[in-house]
């Protein structure tokens, strides 16, 4: 049974949250992980997510929003099913990161932080994702794709379109 009577989360996630708040010396330490798991499930940090997480931790909603707005991976609007994050930071830039980003924009017909009409993909230009030695690199949800070219990127898109890609969970 979940700590919260009318939880918006699945039973598995609710159980995970019940556990998360108990493992740290302070309940509040569970906040960032909870926001990420909530986002994985709901797709973004909705008002309902903010309300329930504030309740679960025992802090104000404002405290949650304050933290939420600090971290670049947390979003308050839905992304595509597959969020394509293209790194253009220095190591990637040197090996074609910007060309790759342009290619993705053209291929998907969308710009930075936009979502395709069918909701399948969203696109983001991001800072270094820690794959510099395998540049240029792209992260789709939590999966890394490296040593890319525009042609290889098309194969990656095909993979997700045909349902072979991993969802966030």
């Amino acid at each position, binding site marked *: 049974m979940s700590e919260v009577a009318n939880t918006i989360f699945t039973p598995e996630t609710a159980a995970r949250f019940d556990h998360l708040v108990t493992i740290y010396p302070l309940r509040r330490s569970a906040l*960032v992980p909870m926001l*990420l798991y909530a986002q994985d499930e709901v797709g973004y940090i909705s008002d309902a997510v903010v309300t329930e997480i504030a309740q679960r931790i025992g802090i104000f909603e404002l405290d949650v929003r*304050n933290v939420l707005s600090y971290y670049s*991976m947390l979003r308050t609007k839905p992304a595509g099913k597959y969020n394509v994050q293209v790194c253009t930071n*220095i*190591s990637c830039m*040197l090996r074609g990161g910007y060309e790759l980003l342009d290619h993705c924009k053209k291929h998907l017909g969308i710009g930075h932080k936009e979502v395709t009409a069918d909701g399948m993909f969203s696109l983001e230009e991001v*800072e270094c994702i820690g794959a*510099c*030695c395998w540049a240029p690199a792209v992260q789709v949800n939590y999966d890394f794709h490296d040593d890319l070219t525009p042609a290889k990127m098309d194969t990656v898109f095909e993979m997700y379109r045909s349902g072979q890609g991993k969802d966030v969970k």
Partner: protein
Amino acid sequence: MPALVSHPDEVRVLSKRFGQGATDIDKYIELDGYKAVQLGIANGPQWIIDTMKASGLRGRGGAGFPTGLKWSFVPKNDKAKYVLVNGDESEPGTCKDHVIFLHDPHSVIEGTMIAGLAIGAKMGFIYLRGEYRYLLKIMEKAVADAYAKGYLGKNIFGSGIDFDVITQTGAGAYEVGEESALMESLEGKRGVPRIKPPFPAVVGLYGGPTVINNAETIASAPPILLMGGEAYAKLGSERNGGTRLFGISGHVERPGVYELPMGYNLKKAIYDVAGGIKNGKKLKAVVPGGSSCPVLLPEEIDVGLDFDQMGKAGTMLGSGGIVVLDESVSIVEFALRTINFYQHESCGWCIPCREGTDWIKKTLTRVHAGGGNKKDVDNVQYLAENMLGRTFCPLGDAAAMPTIAFVKKFRKEFEEYIEGKRVEHPLIAIKPLGELVGAAH
């Protein structure tokens, strides 16, 4: 999945298990895993600290502080103490911790236990950057396997000592890699630094004494205890013990993460280990230790890769991420991309960092777009020099130092760019130097 590379000059201490399936706990044990922590239990905290001191290991997170000394600073009171492993790894050009989490997760857990034994902590946290959530799954499984074997939890190895490990990730913020911001983040707050002193060794996580180390530093502890401090120290150079994972990226033939002895020659690392400049082009510049380290010219790279030699060369060893630029790169564009990062990641607390990075970015953006005037180069240098040492945390310096080096070492290129690219209308108005700069906008 990142490809593994190798070169005969590598000395494999940290990377010895890479590619051997050591994510599996039994394989890890077969390859000497969890022996060092038992040795630590048998010999006690003082022995661990002495061995770490003798090893000459210096922190792999960037600043190069001696690890044994850091551990010895923790007061011996009965407050709850913590170990915090910094796997935030967000300095552009750096991906070495990535490889450790991917191939040898148990070495981080074992290292955390050893640090815990040394300072008397009963709890350790392993904090990965948010983008590494696929690696978190690997770490979580490793931690669960260690609990299942009874290596973590109550009464570890029958010693009467309890030790727990908690793993988690951030959610995207470079600044959270700064140690006090990391503690804030772990406590569920915005990742903004704390005022120091007090230092974490005295007042850290949840108010308790805390040791914070980079993931590679922590993963170095088990092999050090096994081979002995002196033997480890001998692998490296003077005052810089052991080996280190160097990430070589950019315009080289064989980019990758290589384990080289401390003090290894930078030029050799680029030309021999990483196969030289891609497509036979000419070398233009090297950013030697992640994006915050001042750039080196080709004639400056005949230097040993350790904290002291790099310091003498006017730059830093930093996070060990070597970024190589060939002749085709525009330094104007590269400098702009670098400052763009720091502007984006500034937490906004101090004015020199918040306004300085923003103003430099605006100026370089205009220069890059063709609207620059020659005073811009002076302005950028002036702004960056006035940020140095005037901020609460070192992010301000991390932004200023590379900027100063770019404009000093490539001033001619900036000026020629401005001359050659002059367009009619400047994109933003700028006041003449003297009246200037920074605060006004």
